[in-house]
């Protein structure tokens, strides 16, 4: 039997809006985040091999590229957190109006950068 399930049309036929940008970024950051979590699982597994192997990772995170990866990771998760909260409000039936949706979309985009900075300030100074 032929499957009549409709597929999503190609994204290039739409005009760009804040909502579409946030939606696409939500999917991309979701895939990036699970890739990062997988790498962190490998990182944890490497701990079993002992101190000498770990020094390679420690040195990598000391480089400019290593720090960039960490900042990118925090931003990607921050974006996902805020976008997920936006989705949870939608599930409660809130925030569907066009104006509200645009404002919350902007809040997710700009808020993700602010949250990244806040996490670095709090994480480096207060937690554990």
């Amino acid at each position, binding site marked *: 039997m032929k*499957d009549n*399930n409709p*597929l*999503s049309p190609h994204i290039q036929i739409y005009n760009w809006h804040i909502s579409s940008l946030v939606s696409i970024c939500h*999917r991309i950051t*979701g*895939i990036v*985040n*699970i890739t990062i*979590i*997988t790498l962190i*699982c490998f990182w*944890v*597994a490497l*701990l*079993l091999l*002992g*101190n000498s192997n*770990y*020094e390679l990772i*420690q040195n990598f*995170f*000391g480089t400019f590229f290593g720090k960039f990866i*960490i900042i990118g*990771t*925090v931003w990607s*998760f*921050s974006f*996902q*957190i805020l976008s*997920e*909260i936006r*989705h*949870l409000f939608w*599930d409660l039936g809130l925030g569907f109006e066009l104006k509200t949706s645009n404002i919350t979309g902007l809040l997710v985009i700009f808020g993700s950068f602010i949250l990244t900075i806040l*996490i*670095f300030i*709090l*994480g*480096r100074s207060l*937690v*554990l």
Partner: protein
Amino acid sequence: MINATKKWIFLKISSFVLVPLMLWFLLNLVLFYDKSYDEVVLFFISQPTKFLFSLFIIFAYFYSSLSISEVFEDYIESEKLKNVANRLLYSFAIIIPFLTIIVIFNLNI
């Protein structure tokens, strides 16, 4: 209740649980990413880290596998290919957290 509704409910519950877990993880990640071997191991073997990190990866893989299967649903036309992709996805979502939790519970200084 149809499967799509069940999937949606599981997706929402897992995303609700994941938000505070992601915040907890990020705050700790920025703290320990450049720490020494002993400090990182100590972090992973202490409580509540052991429990929270295990919970975090279980929910993260659960949520991601449900979300990515939705992406497959949207963009893969072939049923056969979609089934293979979903099976691979669900296998990874079980194996990787399971192995990582075993590693965490076997870590020691």
